[in-house]
């Protein structure tokens, strides 16, 4: 089961974890991404997230399917927030449920790594110096490359 939402609203991790449960599973790994106050030593006022409606849902679904093909994962939950967010707000949630913990961990990490490079979302950072679009991080593209070359 794959469930994906792209929404301005916040989410509640306990209910999301509940939605991942079924009798076959013994392990749920989750990731919550949170707006950090400090980014490259600038003090952040807000982040604004935009996406490509239609394509972003498809891209996340494809990443979730890839994870479920690679590992014995029973269910995947992805929530990506859009719009204006301030420090300490949730940005993204990924949860993977499996019978075994290593599949849950691997799936969750894989989805986050590919979400960073393969899903059409963009962030603009507002600081005292003004608002600027965030550049792609080299560490994110190399995290994806790690999976593709078999390093985990």
């Amino acid at each position, binding site marked *: 089961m794959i469930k994906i939402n792209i929404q301005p609203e916040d989410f509640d991790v306990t209910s999301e974890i509940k939605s991942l449960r079924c009798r076959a599973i013994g392990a749920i790994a989750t990731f919550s*991404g949170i707006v950090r106050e400090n980014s490259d030593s600038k003090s952040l006022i807000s982040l604004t*997230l*935009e*996406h*490509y409606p*239609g*394509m*972003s849902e*498809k*891209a996340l679904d494809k990443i979730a399917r890839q994870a479920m093909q690679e590992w014995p994962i029973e269910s995947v939950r992805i929530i*990506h927030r859009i719009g204006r967010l301030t420090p300490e707000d949730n*940005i*993204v949630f990924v949860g993977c449920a499996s019978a075994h913990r290593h599949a849950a961990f691997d799936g969750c990490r894989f989805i*986050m790594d590919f*979400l*960073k*490079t*393969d*899903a*059409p*979302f*963009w*962030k*603009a950072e507002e600081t005292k110096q003004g608002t600027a*679009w*965030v*550049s*792609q*991080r080299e560490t*994110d593209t190399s995290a994806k490359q790690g999976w593709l070359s078999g390093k985990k």
Partner: protein
Amino acid sequence: MRIYYFAWVRDHIGYSQEDIHCPETVKTISQLAAFLSQQSAGHAKAFDDLNAVRAAINQEFVNSDKSVKDTDEIAFFPPVTGG
């Protein structure tokens, strides 16, 4: 051909979508970008560094040598920064 722009590509161009009729000579994403960059000063700025721009055809990422046709949904945007 429906074209969407996102993030700073849209900011430079000034709007988020347009419908374009391309000349026959425009056969690929990079030819389309070259054609679009002549439409306005904003377009020129958006497509100034083609290495900095990514594209999708019908909501799938593509390389710049990919063929385009008039019924495609095209999008231009910066490298993604979600998550």
